């Protein structure tokens, strides 16, 4: 029973009760209630059962989160590398002489280089077919000779 200082300083005026009244509240008639031990035990038994269950160790899934994250990042990195390299290996590779990239070295490739030369000087390793450092009519002849040789051989 609390009788001390029910009129705290923070109470508004008009909400204060005289000490005589506060004391009277503490002396109000009391009902005697017998609480059987079984009533207490029923609650406490349930508490022991429930809290024992909640105390049992659980698998620390949360501690594995950083490891899962690292593994996922590694898989993503490998997948990226595979896709990038794989895409290169899947790209079609054309013969150096196959200037029009139709998958065959034939007279059309010689014509293609001849047209480029007619338009102006050409440069770059893709045009220096004979390896003399210059892209000129001799490279056209090299392609033409290659094409003829391939045609002579015929399909194998």
């Amino acid at each position, binding site marked *: *029973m609390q009788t001390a200082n*029910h009129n705290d300083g923070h109470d508004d005026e008009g909400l204060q*009760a005289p000490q005589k009244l506060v004391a009277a509240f503490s002396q109000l008639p009391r*009902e005697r209630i017998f609480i059987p031990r079984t009533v207490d035990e029923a609650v406490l038994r349930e508490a022991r059962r*429930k*809290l024992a269950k909640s105390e049992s160790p659980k698998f620390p899934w949360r501690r594995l989160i950083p490891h899962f994250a690292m593994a996922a990042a590694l898989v993503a990195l490998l997948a990226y590398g595979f896709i990038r390299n794989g895409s290169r290996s899947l790209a079609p590779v054309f013969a150096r002489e196959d200037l029009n990239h139709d998958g065959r070295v034939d007279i059309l490739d010689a014509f293609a280089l001849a047209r480029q030369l007619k338009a102006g000087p050409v440069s770059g390793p893709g045009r220096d077919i004979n390896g003399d450092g210059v892209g000129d009519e001799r490279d056209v002849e090299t392609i033409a000779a290659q094409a003829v040789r391939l045609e002579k051989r015929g399909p194998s």
Partner: protein
Amino acid sequence: MAQSFLVDTSEPAKDHFDARNDLELIAAINNGDAAAFEALYFRHRDWVVGLAHRFTGDSDSALDVMQETFLYFLRKFPGFRLTASLKTFLYPAVRNLSIAARNKASRYQATATELERIEHTPASEAVETGIGDLAVVLAGLSEDHREVLLLRFVDGLSLAEIAQAAETPLGTVKSRLHNALELLRRDERTKEFFER
């Protein structure tokens, strides 16, 4: 007929003393400490029984409500976070369970034995007339007025705690308390408490 608003229970809380405060006990219960729950139970049991008895007016119902209240509280663990006083948290549970118990009990008519028992409650045998008069006047107040007086001057809750517990705006609590005190001040039977 005056009602008794306070209770005396068996096995006082002092036999289950624990130095930890409520917050520390709750932290321990969250970690599965059943002994901490037992300490908290005995610390607040009598208050819950008294409150339930105020609402139900019946000892048996008060015990049922007390049990249900603590089982409801137990279901909050683990993970319970106390943001106010424990009384503030338990009050609405006790009130609602008491109302349910009272509604259930009202289906049954009071027997002659029960009426006789009520007539001879300790309240009607109050030694001091003043105290008996206070009990009579309190019994005649509305539940809202009576409850705010008892929460304030018997249970020791602050106005803010009463507002939170009763889920009522603070202004309404202040208004009720002011009006309740005014009723006591004007009543012939209790005005003496306000006289110097």
